[in-house]
Every structure is written in structure tokens, then in C-alpha cells.
């Protein structure tokens, strides 16, 4: 399939245009979507193309998510835009107590085909309330699927898959990646949920990452190659359900792993993956699993401070050298 270079923002638009044309039950609700097609231009053209199906809402996160949930329970397939991932906190009950639990609590009577879409991430001096990476909270709420793509092709493919999935999906996408371009196949392109991708094969070390961590890891891998260390970079893409088989195949080959994510260290997704690797792949490990993550502080404003707090390429290289004893 031929590919073209497009940005994540364009990829999102394409995904939604295609899906909304295909299924009338799909609509989008969130704050500030109509005037500019979303604050990041992520829904550009959609309000005009699908009148009445891109709905601006008041600043009422609980009811925005609730609107999505109630509609999902009554035959629709909504996508809820959280504006900034940081504001999930204003709708935690609706996401974690309601959306995640309704199908199970009611004995499987109903499906919840809801997508909660949230731009996240730091590095733009947006400070503590507009820079968080909160995906690990939702790993801890059974009943939700959690997706964090990095490249435009995955953004498009996974968004389509999430919309078509009959279960609730929370979909995080780094703000900085809107502008990032990448090859995206022409025509229909769906990436299944729950499948990781080995984006750079290698035999020396397994790097497990997602979101913005992917780009950091690839850069680090290039530098490490110069030192004779061939890193295998696995873009997890879906955090829950996790593709542990791909992870296991890799670690059985390399005998060591480093998890890289922008979210802060304590209780981050790296802790979960690390624990699983420990319990299921212990005998294959030549070194403990290391995690590269942000420091455990709220994201500070001033660029120098923010830069200090966030994980960097050299942190990845350092961790890899530690586990490869080089």
C-alpha cells in the first residue's frame, strides 16, 4: 500500500472523517470544537462536513463524559474530547465508576462503545495543569482499554479501531505529536487494539515504550548503534490489553529491558510492565528491568525546570548501558 507523509492532526481528521461517513451513530462532543475544529485543529473540517455531529459543550466535564456514556448506552458511538488530559480529573467518576463499570456491574446486559480522547504530555511550558501523562490511572480501573499511539499511522489506525470497538477506550495522544509527520498508508488503515509493534529490531536490549517515549527511544537507539549496542524498540501502542507476547519474545532474545515513558516514575506504567516481566520472564533476565520516566514532581513551568524533570535521550542511553553492562 503506498504511503504519504502526513501529521498526526491530519491523521486524526482522516480517521474521523472516514468513520463518521461510514456510521451515522458516531458523533463528537467536547469543548471548543466547532469554531476551529478543536484547539489543536484536530477536527478540522468535521463540523462543516457533518453538521450537528460535532457538538460544542459547556465546561462540564462530568456531563460531557456522561453525555458520551449515556449516548453509548442508548445506541450511539460517541467520541468525547477531554480538551486536555489533565481534566479527566473533573470527570473521574464518570470515567472510572460509570463508564468502566457499567457493563460488568449490570451483568453484561449492555455494551459501552465510547471513546474518550485526550491530548496529553509536556514540553510546551504549559505547566502543571496542562502537561500531565495520566494513562497509568486508567490501567488501574478494570473495564477500560487504554491506547497511547505515537506515530501518525498508528494514531489513525488505532483511532479507527477504538471507534469500532464495542468497549470503552481511553485514547491519549501527546500534544507535541500533532505536528509530527509520518508515513500513513493510503486507503483503509486499521491497527488492531492490543498489538505492540517492533519498530526497530535489535538483539542487545529491549526498549519498551509508547507515546512520546517512542521518539526518544528511537533517537537513543541510533546513538547506541554507534556504540555497538543494537536496541530493539517496541512501541506498545495499546497499554491495556497489553501485548505481552511480543514483549516476551523480545526479552527472551535480548535478556534485558528498559521501559521508557514520559509519565512520572512512581506508579507509572513502567512499574506494571516491570512487575509482569519479573514474574513471567525472570529466568531470562541478565539485569533488572529499568524505567526511564519523568521525576516525581508536578510539571514545572520554566523551560529549564521542565527540561530537567522530563526524561531525555541521554537517560535512555544511560539505562541501556546499565543493563547491557557497557
Amino acid at each position: 500500500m503506498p504511503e504519504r507523509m502526513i501529521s498526526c492532526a491530519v491523521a486524526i481528521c482522516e480517521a474521523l472523517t472516514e468513520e463518521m461517513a461510514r456510521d451515522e451513530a458516531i458523533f463528537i462532543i467536547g469543548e471548543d470544537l466547532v469554531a476551529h475544529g478543536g484547539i489543536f485543529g484536530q477536527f478540522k473540517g468535521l463540523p462543516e462536513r457533518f453538521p450537528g455531529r460535532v457538538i460544542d459543550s459547556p465546561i462540564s466535564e462530568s456531563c460531557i463524559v456522561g453525555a458520551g456514556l449515556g449516548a453509548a448506552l442508548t445506541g450511539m458511538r460517541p467520541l468525547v474530547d477531554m480538551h486536555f488530559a489533565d481534566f479527566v480529573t473533573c470527570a473521574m467518576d464518570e470515567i472510572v465508576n460509570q463508564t468502566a463499570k457499567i457493563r460488568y456491574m449490570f451483568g453484561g446486559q449492555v455494551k459501552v462503545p465510547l471513546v474518550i480522547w485526550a491530548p496529553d504530555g509536556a514540553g510546551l511550558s504549559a505547566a502543571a495543569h496542562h502537561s500531565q501523562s495520566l494513562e497509568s490511572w486508567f490501567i488501574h480501573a478494570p473495564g477500560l482499554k487504554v491506547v497511547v499511539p505515537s506515530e501518525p499511522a498508528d494514531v489513525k489506525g488505532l483511532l479507527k479501531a477504538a471507534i469500532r470497538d464495542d468497549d470503552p477506550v481511553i485514547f491519549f495522544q501527546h500534544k507535541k505529536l500533532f505536528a509530527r509527520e509520518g508515513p500513513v498508508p493510503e486507503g483503509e488503515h486499521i491497527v488492531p487494539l492490543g498489538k505492540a509493534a517492533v519498530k526497530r529490531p535489535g538483539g542487545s536490549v529491549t526498549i519498551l515504550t509508547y507515546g512520546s517515549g517512542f521518539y526518544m527511544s528511537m533517537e537513543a537507539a541510533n546513538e547506541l548503534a554507534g556504540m555497538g549496542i543494537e536496541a530493539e524498540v517496541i512501541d506498545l501502542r495499546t497499554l491495556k490489553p497489553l501485548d505481552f507476547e511480543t514483549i516476551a519474545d523480545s526479552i527472551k532474545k535480548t535478556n534485558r529491558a528498559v521501559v521508557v515513558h514520559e509519565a512520572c516514575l512512581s506508579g507509572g506504567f513502567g512499574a506494571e510492565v516491570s512487575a509482569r516481566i519479573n514474574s513471567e520472564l525472570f529466568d531470562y533476565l541478565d539485569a533488572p528491568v529499568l524505567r526511564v520516566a519523568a521525576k516525581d514532581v508536578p510539571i514545572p513551568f520554566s523551560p529549564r525546570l521542565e527540561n530537567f524533570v522530563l526524561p531525555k535521550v541521554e537517560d535512555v542511553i544511560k539505562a541501556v548501558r546499565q543493563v547491557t553492562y557497557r
Partner: protein
Amino acid sequence: MATTVIMPKLGLTMKEGTIEKWLKQEGDRVEKGEPLVEIITEKLNFQYESPASGILRKILHHEGKVVPVTTPIAIIAEEGEALPEFEAIKSEVPIEAPMPAAAVRKEMKEHRERIFASPVARKIAQEKGIDLSLLKGSGPGGRIIQTDVISAVERVQTEGARPSVPAQKPADKLIPLKGIRKIIARRMTESFRDTPHFYLSVEVDMSAVQDLKERVKDEVEKRAKVRLTLTDILVKVVASALKEHPIINSRIEGDQIRLLEEINVGVAIALDDGLIVPVVHRADQKSLTEIASVIRNLTRRARRGKLTLEDVGGGTFTLSNMGMLGIDKINPIINPPECSILGVGRTVEKPVVQGGEIKIKPMAWFSLSSDHRIVDGAAAGLFLNHIHKIIENPDLLLV
């Protein structure tokens, strides 16, 4: 109905067996009664026959694995039949069970010196038989890591037992140390290392025994249907002497010596792939005819690989007659856990001085190796002397 093949208990005391060789592979058809697998126990090599007919669907333990008796080792079933679940090979998701504190403390006490090695290093070391305590770790804190073990494995493979030999020598032949050879290697090493051997020898005049043999061999042959050999007579002599010297018919058990009630004399037999010691049970109560018959039967079965655990078990003393191989003298290694072993060399006509005159006599060297923990030179010497006396005056057997 699927049949689970288990490690059979081939003898009273057998606790575990080594899977030496699978005679059928996964997917092969096997008939009930067909030899399925070669099993080695402490003392012998056994061909275990299939308990059922069907397809060998799954081998649960591979060659070289030591497995306790009654452990499932294979499954025989028809094509497409459902197989029972086994955790023999690998469990998919290990359950994290915290070790009780007392067990952890006990383990830590037992490891006086903990070896730090990564999990994969340990795994490779175990698979390749590398002793981690001999390695120096290059990881942080002296951690032994994968490359350390791999290097050690490579060193062992290239250097082998002759470090001075250059790597490329196409003429060398490699014989893997496995099966009966491996067992002998281990037992003899243990015996040689753990038992303080001392050696007593005496040269014995064999003429009286040779006369005896001439006189009774026809009768023995008539009754036992086998020819009488020197070994048969030696077994009788040894058994008789052991009766008078119970301290030799003994074994060490921890911090006590057990004087054994039965006198079971083992006879060392050389087979193609190694030494085997079938036992003449209650040799002191057997006639020469019986001893000859028993020994011949054991030898025949030994050569066919058909000895049972009972045949090789329960020995209290071992006799090693090297005379047939033309050896003058042997200081044998004790067959553990016995107290002593007697090695007899070839009978040679020699000039000896008897009663002030030089006579030509058939002489043979009798060498007794003994465990100094159980006996001192005096006790062993008395025993060997007794044997000497009987050999030179076999009528004493009647007394």
C-alpha cells in the same frame, strides 16, 4: 484413553532414574512391550518397555534428566485424543507465592556465601554444568552475568581436559560422559575423595587352590552345568573369611559403623561400556556349585544388559579378579559404601623360597583396599592374612 508413562521403580531402594535415551520419538507409533526408553539407575542400565500401545504423543522429560520414581515422563495416546495436563515442562503464568519468613531465613543461613548471578546466568550455568562459585562476575557488585557464563562455557569447550593441545585437532574423538560411564565417574570420584583408602598386599601361593579346582571341577560342572573358575572359589573364600571378620563386612553410616548381617559378595565384571558389579547374595551360605551357577547367570545377564536392581544391590564386599587381563597387581578403589575391596592379580609361576629352598610356585598378588575410618591396618591385615591362610590351605573351608 491416554496412558501416562511414569519413571518406573525398578528396585526396592530406587528413588530416581536418569533418562538415558528415548528409543522412540514424539509422533512414533509404539506397541505395548516394545522398548520405549533407556533408564539408568545408580547401578544399571535398563530398557523400559512401553506399558501401552499408541502414539508417543508427548515426551515430558528429555535425555539426561534425572527424575524421581513415579514422575510422569511421557504420554501415549491415539491421534487426536485429549491429553492430560502436566506442568512438567514449563508453567505459563507462575503464581507469585511469597516465601514464608522462616524459610527465607533458613535459606539465607544455609547460603553462607551468596553468589550474585543474574537469573539467565544461573540458568545457563545450570544447563551447561558450570560451577558459579568458580566464576568471577563482571557485573556491578561482582554480579555474574550472562557473558561471564558464556565465556566460561566457551573456555571449557575449547580447552577441555588438555589445555596444552591446540584447538584444531581433527583426529581427536569425543566420548560424552554419560550413562553408565557418568555414574562410574561420579561414584568412583566420591569414593576416592571421601574415603581414606589404605592398601595391604600379600603374595599368595595358589598351588593348593589349583589342586582343589582340579579335584572338584567335574562335579561342579555336572551339577551347575557350568565350568568352575578361580573367581567362584575366591568368592567362597572371601565369604568364609568375612564371617570371621565382621568388621570388614560393614559400612559407615553417618557417625556409626553398621556391621552387616548378610554377606553379599560383589564380583566386578567388565562390560563394553563400563564396570558392573553383580552380587552373590549370602555367599557364605552357598556351595561352590551354587556360587558358580549364580555368577555365571549374573555374568550372562550382565552382558545382555538384563540385570535388575536386586542383582546389583545389597553388596557388602567386592572382589575384583584382574588375573584374566594379565595384570599382576591392582589397588582397587572401594565400591561405596562398602568397607573393603579385594583385588587379585594373575597367577604366575615364580621362584619362591620355602623352607630354605627355592621352589617354583604359582603365585598371585592379593591386594586389599580398606576404609581407614572403619578399620586400621591391624584388622585389615588379619582379614587378608585369613584369606591367605585359606587359599594356601582350602581344607580350612570345612572348618
